[in-house]
């Protein structure tokens, strides 16, 4: 067998000869290529040609294999066995594991290219892609086989690396998805127009809809107040971030769940807006606790006010049998009890957790006094100037009673003509607090005494000031009006201060 095209070096005389000679040159080029292993065998598979590429790839010298072994001997035996089995099934004919398995298809005229692991002389292995062609004589009888192989190592490495990257990507996606799915919040993304683009299991549970049903549907459709839900999307698109936005989700079976939404916009790598990410926390329990706390507060308030009402009633009953001289005292007592009840409400309304906002508290006191003492058509107005300070709730009642007493006295006595201006001020002066009650009324004739006109009232003022650990500053103002200035220790703490100041 001569597959190298012969050795005739005479110059071609005819075109056919030239072509034949060119073919021979091509064959030589292929066989001399170091990048392809070209192995030619006889019909039985015994190696007849082993080119330089095969020598380089497999580590054998041609002489070591020619007329000695078949290509099956330098192939992974397990793969050869597996290939024989697979071909036997595919072609429905028994194929012997060995060289026949490597060339069977080619012997049947079927183009055959497959992957195979070659084993080098030193025992190391490398993946190869092998193309097998049957060599036939003029009568079309098989005289041998040509196995052209290329080293597939680099491609295999790339494939392995790609596989690794794909796996890493899948792992990353799984990890990210796990985080989304394991979140206790119902998570969702929408496009900028509020159409749902992704959800987690919790969102499915919240709405009673499947992921497929939710994706593509408008976000607002799953809430009792669709307009408010839509407003949330608009708000986050303008603000970039929205926190604690309460909505009531409505599942398909009618179940309603109060949820608190945190929403943010999200972007792609080029900072192009992609949509809105929304996380909903079920706050039903929190709402219930708030409701329970409110109910308890109302219940306590109801009982306290009823008890105060009983006391006021007892006093009212006593006044029926009391000498006329004492009736006014009883009435004042009733009024002060009423003031305590009102202060209780004002403290609740002005409360910021464990402290009471002084500015809000003073404004509420002023508003209540305007309503109860002045009426709708009064010519007396009350102004409040207060720094944003906070007060311990324990001291809020005596502080409120002190303000109430001073302001009531001013309203009762400073404005005999029914018109005037009363100002309640609170400011921090060093480590003290100064409460100032100023009116532009008729003033007091006797400025040497304590600057409050009513005896019992002044007693109460003195008691409240002592209770708060403060002092009354003698007024230096002359002319019209009265100014009462009281210095109190720093029982008022600056906003954010948590320290409770001792009495």
């Amino acid at each position, binding site marked *: 067998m001569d597959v190298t095209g012969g050795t005739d070096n005479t110059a071609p005389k005819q075109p056919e000869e030239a072509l034949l000679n060119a073919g021979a040159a091509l064959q030589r080029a292929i066989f001399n290529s170091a990048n392809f292993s070209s192995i030619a065998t006889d019909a039985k598979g015994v190696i007849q040609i082993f080119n330089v590429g095969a020598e380089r790839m497999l580590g054998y010298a041609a002489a070591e294999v020619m007329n000695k072994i078949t290509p099956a001997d330098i192939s992974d035996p397990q793969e050869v066995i597996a290939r024989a089995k697979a071909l036997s099934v595919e072609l429905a004919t028994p194929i012997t594991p060995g060289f026949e398995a490597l060339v069977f298809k080619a012997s049947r005229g079927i183009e055959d290219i497959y992957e195979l692991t070659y084993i080098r002389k030193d025992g190391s292995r490398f993946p190869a892609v092998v193309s097998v062609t049957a060599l036939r004589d003029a009568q079309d009888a098989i005289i041998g086989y040509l196995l052209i192989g290329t080293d597939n190592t680099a491609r295999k490495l790339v494939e392995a690396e790609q596989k690794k990257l794909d796996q890493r990507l899948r792992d990353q996606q799984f990890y990210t998805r796990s985080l989304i799915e394991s979140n206790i919040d119902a998570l969702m993304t929408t496009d900028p127009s509020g159409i749902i683009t992704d959800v987690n299991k919790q969102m499915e549970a919240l709405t009673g809809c499947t992921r497929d049903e939710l994706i593509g549907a408008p976000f607002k459709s799953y809430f009792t107040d669709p307009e408010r839900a839509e407003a949330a999307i608009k708000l986050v698109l303008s603000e970039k971030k929205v926190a604690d936005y309460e909505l009531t989700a409505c599942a398909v079976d009618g179940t309603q769940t109060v949820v608190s939404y945190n929403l943010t916009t999200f972007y792609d790598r080029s900072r192009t807006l992609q949509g809105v990410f929304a996380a909903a926390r079920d706050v039903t329990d929190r709402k219930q606790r708030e409701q329970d706390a409110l109910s308890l507060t109302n219940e306590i308030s109801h009982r306290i006010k009823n008890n105060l009402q009983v006391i006021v009633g007892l006093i009212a009953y006593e006044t029926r049998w009391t000498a006329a001289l004492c009736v006014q005292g009883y009435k004042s007592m009733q009024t002060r009890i009423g003031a305590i*009840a009102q202060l209780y409400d004002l403290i609740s309304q002005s409360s910021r957790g464990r402290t009471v906002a002084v500015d809000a508290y003073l404004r509420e006191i002023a508003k209540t006094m305007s309503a109860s003492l002045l009426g709708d058509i009064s010519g007396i107005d009350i102004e409040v100037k207060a720094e944003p300070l906070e007060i311990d709730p324990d001291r809020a009642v005596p502080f409120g009673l002190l303000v109430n007493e001073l302001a009531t006295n001013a309203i009762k006595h400073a404005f005999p003509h029914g018109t005037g201006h009363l100002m309640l001020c609170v400011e921090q002066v060093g480590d003290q607090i100064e409460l100032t009650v100023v009116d532009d009324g008729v003033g007091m004739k006797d400025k040497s005494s304590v600057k409050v006109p009513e005896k019992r009232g002044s007693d109460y003022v003195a008691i409240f000031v002592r209770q708060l650990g403060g002092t009354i500053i003698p007024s230096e103002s002359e002319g019209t009006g009265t100014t009462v200035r009281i210095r109190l220790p720093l029982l008022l703490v600056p906003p954010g201060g948590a320290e409770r100041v001792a009495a």
Partner: protein
Amino acid sequence: MAVILIVEDDVFIREIADMMIQDCGHQTLSASDVDQALSLLRDPQHIDALFTDIYLKTAVLGGCELASQAIKLRPKLRVLYTTGNSITDKMKTFFVEGAHFLRKPYTQHQLQDSVEGLLAA
């Protein structure tokens, strides 16, 4: 002289209110809960005004519910609510039209002023 129906679950407070209103010359009827009050309202007895606590025993808005039903029975009835709790805007939506409100604790003078204001309205 008017006839005032007082509805208050606390006996002492109810009787003191009764006394305060009678002191200013009005006649009173009293009930401790919604059912008792509705029973009186269904009677032919003339009644000018209803003075009711909002928080009646376990009914947090019992007084509001009572007033709503009372108005259906007697459309011209005047209503004065009382409670020690703060009145929220939401609570006001339950008030019948033209109703007045008096905060607890109230003095005799404040109650009498409220009743006279209610009757004069």
